[in-house]
């Protein structure tokens, strides 16, 4: 017995010592001193790291762009790190927690607020000497702001629309109405016609229901939105219920894949989706049409505007930033990092290299540079973005702190509706409550 308790005392002491060590380590990641505001360029050799996500197709252009930067800044070496989207955020969170954050990071609007509010991102206004964002329009630039500070520089733009397979429409002789301002009823009618004309071989539409961008547009047409500028959930349950009811009716009408087929398709990469495989004629898409076109080289794909209602509020359209560049607040060389971001977002050679691969460029100069070379789906998308730009209102606020689950929760409750586990109204109330809880949990 005696020996036992002695052991226990030793054990406890060791455990306390180890955990103290670790927790001091965990602290490396958060809070702490902010970067030196008067950061200066170094004249000694400097190494900075650039972290981005994407598939192999993005490797060459990123490599080449960084080589150009190194040529222009001979004392700076850029170490590239890259992973796929799914791994990206796991690795980033871990490296930030361990005090090893990369200097420059590609970012998604889902995480900008969460990282910025918790002190992981540098306020780019501090480095305006090296980083010029004046070429961006105010609306676009604002999508990189949180709490009045600029934390992220938009790289590309997108906006949800309807991708349509014209080859299928032609084959079954289905005519589109004037889609400039087509309505939800129009969309429904086309979907039904395709389904009927093809005898169900090709379904009309892949419905929406589980993605916040399309929900936000739907809500904005009805004078509502998902998050307000203060980062609160202001979505009305009735609006969400209506959004789901619309899609649910289409599923019940048989003009879309069934609930279980949709669930199966929810996890596939874009190029295995029903549109790319010619199984449906239309789908909602954040204007990244090229990925589909590559996967379905024989189909003639086109991009149509997001349908609307007759009495929709003007300016419901908006441009969403497809991705951003950010700088770590812990960067040892913020000035050089800022120069790199500047180079990547303003140097026209980079604009040419990147093309539309990271989305239609946010920088209007880049758009001009690449327009002459655009063809096919890239051109369709660019035209679409230009059209939206002309009609767009103030952009929807970026996802607030703790709201990263907004999409996955929406998809989850949408499935409950599809499989009859809840009515649209019940699920809408549950979703909004769940999302509010997440935001509250993040505030602590």
């Amino acid at each position, binding site marked *: 017995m005696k020996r036992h308790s002695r052991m226990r005392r030793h054990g406890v002491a060791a455990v306390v010592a180890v955990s103290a060590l670790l*927790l001091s380590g965990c602290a490396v990641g958060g809070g702490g001193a902010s970067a030196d505001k008067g950061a200066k360029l170094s004249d000694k050799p400097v190494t900075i790291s650039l972290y981005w996500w994407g598939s192999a197709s993005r490797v060459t252009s990123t490599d080449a762009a960084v080589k150009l930067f190194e040529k222009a800044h001979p004392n700076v070496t850029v170490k590239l790190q890259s992973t796929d989207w799914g791994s990206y955020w796991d690795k980033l969170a871990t490296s930030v927690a361990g005090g090893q954050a990369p200097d420059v990071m590609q970012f998604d609007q889902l995480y900008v607020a969460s990282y910025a509010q*918790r002190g992981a991102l540098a306020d780019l206004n501090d480095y305006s000497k090296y980083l010029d964002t004046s070429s961006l329009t105010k609306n676009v630039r604002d999508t990189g702001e949180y709490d009045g500070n600029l934390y992220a520089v938009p790289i590309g733009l997108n906006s949800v629309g309807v991708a349509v397979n014209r080859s299928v429409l032609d084959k079954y002789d289905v005519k589109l109405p004037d889609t400039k301002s087509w309505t939800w009823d129009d969309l429904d009618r086309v979907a039904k016609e395709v389904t009927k004309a093809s005898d169900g071989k090709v379904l009309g539409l892949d419905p929406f229901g589980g993605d916040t961008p399309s929900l936000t547009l739907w809500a904005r047409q009805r004078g509502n939105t998902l998050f307000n500028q203060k980062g609160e959930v202001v979505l009305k349950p009735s609006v969400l219920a209506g959004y789901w009811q619309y899609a649910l009716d289409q599923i019940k009408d048989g003009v879309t894949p069934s609930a*279980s087929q949709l*669930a199966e398709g929810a996890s596939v990469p874009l190029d295995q989706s029903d549109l790319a495989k010619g199984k449906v004629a239309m789908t909602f898409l954040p204007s990244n049409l090229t990925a589909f076109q590559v996967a379905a080289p024989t189909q003639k794909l086109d991009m149509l505007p997001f349908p609307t209602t007759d009495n929709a509020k003007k300016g419901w359209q908006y441009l969403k930033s497809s991705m951003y560049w950010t700088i770590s607040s812990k960067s040892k060389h913020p000035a050089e990092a800022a120069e790199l971001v500047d180079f990547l977002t303003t140097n026209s050679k980079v604009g040419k290299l990147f093309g539309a691969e990271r989305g239609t460029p946010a920088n209007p100069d880049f758009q001009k540079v690449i327009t002459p070379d655009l063809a096919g789906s890239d051109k369709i998308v660019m035209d679409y973005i230009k059209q939206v730009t002309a009609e767009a209102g103030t952009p929807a606020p970026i996802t607030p702190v703790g709201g990263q689950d907004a999409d996955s929760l929406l998809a989850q409750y949408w*499935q409950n509706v599809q499989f009859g586990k809840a009515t649209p109204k019940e699920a809408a109330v549950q979703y909004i409550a769940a999302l509010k809880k997440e935001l509250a949990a993040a505030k*602590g």
Partner: protein
Amino acid sequence: MSALNELRALKVPKGTKRIRDKSDTRDNKAAAVFLLPWLIGFFAITLGPMVASLYLSFTDYNLLQNPNFTGLTNIERMLQDSDLGSSLIVTLVYVVISVPLQLIVALAIAVLLDRGMRGLSFYRSVLYLPSLLGGSVAIAVLWRLVFGGEGLLNAFLALFGIHGPSWIGSPNTALGTLIILHVWTFGAPMVIFLAGLRQIPRELYEAASTDGATRWRQFRSITVPMLSPIVFFNLVLGIIGAFQSFTQAYVISNGSGGPTNSTLFITLYLYQKAFGSLQMGYASAIAWLLLLIVGAATAINFWASKYWVFYDD
């Protein structure tokens, strides 16, 4: 007395202690030498992170800022978390069905493959192949090809006029396809069984044969008892592993655990919370709940093992 017996005898009456103490001292030094790497690893690498995660489970740690101690908040939250509840049920169903099923298949095939037969190494390698694929992206594609709405299984059923659903996309059958996937990758326990079968002295079978024992009888009275420590090993580790199943569900549902949370394993859920929602504190609390459950299951296993596991020593 060996490790397992001692572990089993955790509640052995105090009286036996003195005898053991005496012999204990005999090997202490040797044990320290043999266990040195493990001791260093345990205290320097394993224990620290475990204790840290235990501490973090009482905090609001969000990966980006210092953790704040929040007392029992996470535990209160777990009690009200219906997603956690459903993920526990999903995980339990998965463990209870897939572990025994996989072991039975693995054992049956190992016995089939044991003892001189032509093409043994070929069969063994081919049967191990699925386990080599592990959680690769190819598996996800393949699984849709087989169990999707227009998959091979439904094409087969159509021959009999049955119109099958998307087995992956239906909440009632999605977990079933994951169980099949688990059983299908029976390579690891099979190899361990085979290695165990190798250790059974051949003479036992020879003696039994001369006595006229049937194959089934030989299996019952020689193979099963002699192999029971290995069966026990596979069972314990199979359960520990299945409770922590992650990759397959992650790859096939693309991390969502859908449809309608029907494949939301507890590790997938805590992963979502940790890295998706940046709620590492809460995720750590869930992980420790999982540890308690797996620990209880393992303890029951060890307790039950004295009724069926046969040790020679």
